[in-house]
């Protein structure tokens, strides 16, 4: 599934949001790919990702690196989250040199990804865009909450948990950073960006107006 697409936001608040992941194609280059995916994780870890994981084992908040490495299988999808263009370009450069033969996908701002790819001597092969959210959007939480929850494409981060974190931070029970880490835990793949979440959460905490749901019939588009 498109588990790292549909991360709602705008070019300004998506500048530090990058997911790089690798996987094999089932039935084609699947056999023996676990070792190559472990190498992918090795390379990613040398560039200090803020989160990482493989849904079969967990994320950086719920599993150790050793557990993750050991848990990688031929069918795994291994993810790492970065916060800067320089890191992404460096990871891509190292992945190109490693020539693992595995498919590598970067989820992030498209134009900047193109620049990262160029710096690594790569191009974009296939690209996927979101066209937004259609239908009964007035039944969704507010857009600022969605910018946080949509960082887990499998929908494991509940809007109710975001609301609870906002309350806990306001009451002084949690720091914004610890609240963001709590939100990252349910995202089993490790694609949740807790740095961006902390920033978005801080804005929600400071905001006096309610994060109101969209109007009936309103398509949630990207700008």
């Amino acid at each position, binding site marked *: 599934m*498109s588990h790292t697409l549909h991360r*709602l936001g705008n070019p300004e608040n998506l500048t530090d949001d990058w997911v790089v992941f690798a*996987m094999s*194609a089932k039935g084609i280059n699947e056999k023996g790919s676990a070792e190559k995916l472990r190498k992918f994780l090795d390379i990613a870890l040398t560039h200090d990702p803020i989160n990482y994981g493989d849904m079969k084992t967990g994320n950086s908040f719920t599993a150790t690196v050793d557990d993750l490495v050991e848990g990688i299988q031929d069918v795994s999808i291994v993810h790492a989250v970065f916060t800067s263009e320089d890191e992404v370009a460096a990871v891509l450069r190292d992945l190109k040199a490693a020539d693992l033969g595995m*498919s590598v996908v970067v989820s992030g701002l498209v134009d900047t990804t193109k620049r990262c790819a160029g710096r690594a001597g790569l191009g974009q092969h*296939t690209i996927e865009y979101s066209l937004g959210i259609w239908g009964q959007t007035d039944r969704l*939480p507010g857009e600022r909450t969605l910018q946080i929850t949509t960082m887990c494409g*499998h*929908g494991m981060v509940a809007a109710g948990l975001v609301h609870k974190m906002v309350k806990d931070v306001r009451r002084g029970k949690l720091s914004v950073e610890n609240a963001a880490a709590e939100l990252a835990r349910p995202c089993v793949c490790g694609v949740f960006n807790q740095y961006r979440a902390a920033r978005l959460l801080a804005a929600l905490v400071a905001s006096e107006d309610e994060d109101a749901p969209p109007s009936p019939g309103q398509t949630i588009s990207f700008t």
Partner: protein
Amino acid sequence: MVIDPATCERCLKCLPVCPVGAIRFERPTKQVVIDQDLCVECEVCYRADVCPSGALQRVELSWPRTLRAVFSNPLLIHKETRIPGRGTEEMKTNDVTGRFKRGQIGIAVELGRPGLSASFRDVEKVTKTCAAHGIQFEPQNPVTHLLKDRIRGTILPEVLDERVLSAIVEFEIEQTAALVLLKDLQAISRELDTVFSLNVTQLVEPDGSVPMLDMLRAEGLSPSPNGKNNMGLGQPAYDFGAEGE
């Protein structure tokens, strides 16, 4: 999932972690319950480990409720696709598989996302709409395996009332035919009892351009500034260079 009323301490810690709001406190009975119609069996509440008394309990599911779990819990693997999650490898491995060809657009309609959930009754409204355009549903996609009639887009009647966190309808279509279908999806979206997140995929041209973008923008659609970029590092098993020969 169920909550054992005998052991539940009514601490309410499980309420906020449910992605679909299926856990609630019923004031008349003073019980915390899971609405079995809304629960999509994703097990987020169980994995959150918030229950101090072990009252949150898994139950063995039978068909067709088992669908809720495989479409909602990413830790489970679909037997059709052998990958975790709700869709396919789609563009993630296109550099190897060559699934998306030049001149085509890949479309994925993910019903229920983000976090609202969807019944297969709503999924069927979309599959019927798409089938009317003569598309071929992606054979590896788990929803395709629930179609009773792939020509008409009807879904097995016994699963229609099952609710899942999300379900994806996937197919490829020639770019020239895509706009009419997208307009029909826009129309049907108003008749659904849920939302869908919509995505489009295309092979990047050798000069770096993406032909569908101008067409989409001209129709008032707004492709996201962020997207998924397959970097072409996979060992190809498909000869892209041979296209058009």
